[in-house]
């Protein structure tokens, strides 16, 4: 890691601009799927009495869609502060794992920069950043996490989310159900392509299967957002047990 300072991009012929442009291009298909949800969230929030100023305040400061949908569902006048803060923490608890997985890639960054990078860590920016870092790492690039690439993805996600949730609040009643048009399939599509990029054979993917089965069963049986935590944790426990077996052999 000592050559990180000398070659911040780790690859010959790249500039901050070219790396950022790569991020813009990579985030484009993801934004396509985000816009309908942003509009729907804004419209739902407006129905609950949040104003066109308050909606971008929420989506800009919190910037985590799942927790915002949950909070808007629970919103009352006045809002129940403890309930909303607790639900937000629980829905976003997957960030704990995501931040842990990201930390080997960003621990060389100055703390302040890392804290800025983490503020913008959402499912999509994290997944694209991690997938890119792994691909570059596999190609032998020492500083494999590209901060300009990651921040460009974040900038696209952030501006799209804040602008379109505000727009949704403003035009509210015009918007119907995004699911009717099939836009909700954009998320599985994005994540499946990212999973394929992380594929290292069926053996390495066994924990994913555990996660999929446990998350799906939890989703069917337990109401609320618990399925993400249940699926992720059981897959990680499975990975831990399998990794231990591998050491013994």
């Amino acid at each position, binding site marked *: 890691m000592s050559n990180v300072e000398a070659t911040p991009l780790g690859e010959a012929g790249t500039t901050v601009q070219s790396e950022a442009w790569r991020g813009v291009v990579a985030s*484009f*298909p*993801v934004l*396509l799927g985000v816009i309908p949800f942003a509009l729907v969230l804004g419209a739902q929030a407006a129905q609950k009495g*949040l104003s066109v100023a*308050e909606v971008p*305040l*929420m989506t800009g*400061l919190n910037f985590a869609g799942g927790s915002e949908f949950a909070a808007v569902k629970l*919103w009352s006048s006045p*809002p129940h*502060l403890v309930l909303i*803060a607790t639900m*937000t923490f629980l829905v976003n*608890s*997957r960030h*704990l*794992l995501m*931040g*842990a997985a990201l*930390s*080997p890639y*960003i*621990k060389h960054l100055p703390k302040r920069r*890392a804290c800025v990078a*983490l503020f913008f860590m959402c499912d999509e920016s994290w*997944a694209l950043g*991690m997938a890119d870092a792994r691909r570059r790492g596999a190609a032998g690039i020492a500083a494999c996490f590209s901060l300009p690439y990651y921040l460009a993805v974040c900038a696209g996600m952030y501006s799209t989310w804040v602008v379109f949730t505000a727009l949704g609040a403003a035009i509210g009643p015009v918007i119907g159900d995004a699911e009717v*048009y*099939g*836009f*909700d*399939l*954009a998320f*599985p*599509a*994005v*994540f*499946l*392509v*990212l*999973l*394929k990029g*992380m594929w290292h054979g069926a053996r390495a993917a066994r*924990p*994913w299967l*555990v*996660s*999929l089965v446990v*998350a*799906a069963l939890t*989703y069917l049986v337990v109401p609320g957002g618990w*399925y993400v935590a249940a*699926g992720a944790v059981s*897959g*990680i426990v499975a*990975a*831990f047990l399998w990794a231990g077996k*591998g*050491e013994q052999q």
Partner: protein
Amino acid sequence: MIDTAIDLRNVVAILLMASATYLTRTLGYVALRNRKLSPRAMAVLESVPGCVLISVIAPAFVSGRPADLIALALTVAAATCLPMLPTVIIGVTAAGLLRQVLN
């Protein structure tokens, strides 16, 4: 009329949400930043992204609607051999069309 009012109680709730979320984003990093990880811990950490991603989309795999399941199957097939943008377009288009036809 566009409502641009700001209610103090709403702002407090939003600030609490933002703090809770930022805590979830930074705690994992703070906990692991200065640790030297064992090979086993690294192997486990390597599997975290896939486990999180597939858990987030797991509900799509147990949708009760045939149209959604067929669209998902097409999306899985597309994801194995196509880049991001065509896969997203195929998934969204297939779901949109199949829901019109089958529902």
